[in-house]
């Protein structure tokens, strides 16, 4: 009999679970007979590491490429450039064939309804993936019941129901249970709570934190809600127009954001205190078109501290942390690079 259990840890705890290098995805624009009309540069040169057992969050405005990153990592779309290593092995190589990789990485989407087959009962929905991978029917159903228990839905009550008989929060729990059915090591959560009410959101977030502990999971958590990210994440990647603007430990980023975009984003959070209302919006305007991103730093068109250097060349991620808590805190901003020619940078060096 086949055992579908969590695969062993090969590289040891120090080996990042996922390493992505130079990841890029361009969606060509359809322009008919007369040649190509350029491409949507959805992700454009992204390096990424997800450590074992951590929750890495990706934040950024709509259209900045968060979902594209997750679809690239899931292998749902082929990358234009770049490669992905999983536990030290190149995905798609002989050591880690795509099928084996896809079993170890699962995904939960925002739209809880669209991602469930309306004609399968809850039990069948959850038992289906392990059966496809060769688990016997009885074992698969047994596992489905255990998972329903784990996500807080009584199997006796829910196993036979169909998706339309459930609330949004309950459906999202089913999606999570289904993602767990193959005992994956990495779960990609693409806006898992964005469509839920606040009280239900809290239930699902609590559940996700419990399951992580229980099943030894690693999360890639995509969200545009900074409060949620602050609550769940260990590290945060801030994306802007297909590129990384800043990455680092959550506390360090929330306490001392390095990139002006991160500062704007953080200041855009609702204050929860009516006596401390703000008067001016921290960020103005919309992100530029990803077909023709502005030259230089992509944020320079909206940046409050932009200088000529910013539109001349593109900054790369560089370490900005000086304390132990800020280890691994990097930002891509010329104002933080000594000698870059940005007036704020030279002052810092002196």
């Amino acid at each position, binding site marked *: 009999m086949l055992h579908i259990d969590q695969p062993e840890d090969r590289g040891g705890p120090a080996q990042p679970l996922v390493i992505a290098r130079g990841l890029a995805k361009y969606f060509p624009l359809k322009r008919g007979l007369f040649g190509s009309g350029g491409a949507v540069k959805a992700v454009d040169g992204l390096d990424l590491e997800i450590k074992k057992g951590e929750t890495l969050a990706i934040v950024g405005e709509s259209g900045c490429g968060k979902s594209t990153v997750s679809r690239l990592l899931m292998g749902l779309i082929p990358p234009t450039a770049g490669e992905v290593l999983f536990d030290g092995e190149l995905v798609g190589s002989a050591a880690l064939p795509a099928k084996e990789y896809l079993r170890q990485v699962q995904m939960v989407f925002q739209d809880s309804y669209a991602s469930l087959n309306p004609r399968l009962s809850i039990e069948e929905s959850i038992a289906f993936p392990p059966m496809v991978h060769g688990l016997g029917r009885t074992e698969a159903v047994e596992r489905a019941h255990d998972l329903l228990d784990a996500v807080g839905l009584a199997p006796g009550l829910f196993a036979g129901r169909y998706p339309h008989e459930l609330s949004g929060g309950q459906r999202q729990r089913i999606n999570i249970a289904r993602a767990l059915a193959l005992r994956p090591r990495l779960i990609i959560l693409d806006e898992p709570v964005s469509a839920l009410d*606040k009280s239900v959101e809290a239930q699902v977030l*609590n559940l996700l934190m419990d399951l992580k502990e229980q099943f030894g999971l690693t999360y890639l958590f995509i969200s545009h809600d900074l409060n949620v990210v602050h609550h769940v994440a260990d590290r945060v990647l801030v994306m802007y127009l297909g590129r990384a603007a800043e990455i680092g430990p959550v506390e360090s980023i929330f306490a001392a954001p390095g990139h002006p975009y991160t500062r704007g984003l953080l200041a855009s959070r609702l204050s929860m205190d009516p006596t401390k209302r703000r008067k001016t919006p921290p960020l103005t305007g*919309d992100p530029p078109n990803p077909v023709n991103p502005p030259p230089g730093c992509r944020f320079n068109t909206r940046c409050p501290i932009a200088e000529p250097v910013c539109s001349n060349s593109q900054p790369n991620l560089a370490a900005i942390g000086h304390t132990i808590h800020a280890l691994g805190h990097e930002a891509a901003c010329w104002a933080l690079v000594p000698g870059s020619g940005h007036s704020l940078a030279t002052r810092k060096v002196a």
Partner: protein
Amino acid sequence: MRDDLLVLARDLRVKFTTGVNAVNGVDFDLRQREVLCILGESGSGKSVTLRALMRLNPPTKTIMSGTLELGGRDVVQASENEMSDLRGPFVSMIFQEPMTALDPVFTIGRQITETILRHENISRRKARRRALELLELVQIPSAKRRLDAYPHELSGGLRQRAMIAIALSCRPKLLLADEPTTALDASVQIQILLLLREIQQELGMGMIFVTHDLGVAGEVADRIAVMYAGRFIEEGPVADLMRQPLHPYAKGLLGATVHEGSRGKRLTTIPGAPPDLRDLPGGCAFAPRCTEAEGACLAHLPELRTPVPDRAARCIHVDDRPAAFGERLAS
């Protein structure tokens, strides 16, 4: 009656022919320049209440009862013509999804001018000039060009600004907003919220703002009404309500909202699910989910209690005596 009263609702009820009791006795007043936020979960009846104020629920499928007056005019009994004269110059509305709430085959400019021309006797040219001013008022960059743009040519944030411009086109005294920022990014959301508040103050409008996000209410509201299963279960000034909610449901909602201080802590949750609106339990609709519930809660609907002037909650555990309330606050 005071003449700055924009809305007067007493025991307002909306029922659908499908058997859904969406709004089950709502009482409130709204004065000029006042911003009321209706806060509640999905399905609690926020949108139906808002649409009822303009009588925009599907006419053949809706049964409306109780008292509802807009600026002293009876909305429940008014003819369709009288209603349509009110819509625009007295009251107008902004919706959640600016993409689907705008007609895709008409330009933004046309959608503004047609409203002006409907209600005011002015020339097309003047209407267009006014449309341009409106786009500038809502801070749409290169407004002149945007007049001839179609909705799909604008980003989500700009579309919502255009929607606001349309709603403002006849200088309404009362602006209704149904989750106008839910579909937007946080950075755009705050822009729109600030814009709405600024315009509301500048034009001296009354505003009713529907949201499911306490944080959003905190940014715009003067008063908050918490809605549950078609009733206002608590109402009060925004700062007081957010600092110390009275009703167990409002407390639960506050505890479940992820905010800056919640990292590392377990979020409190509200067990159970909202009731079926086709078959509401007698008594307090929240009782089946309430940790403080007792037999009396289910016996009959709790009355509104007023522990301090200006605050009210529908819960038998809220003390009616102002003194006792003060003591609890102090402890």
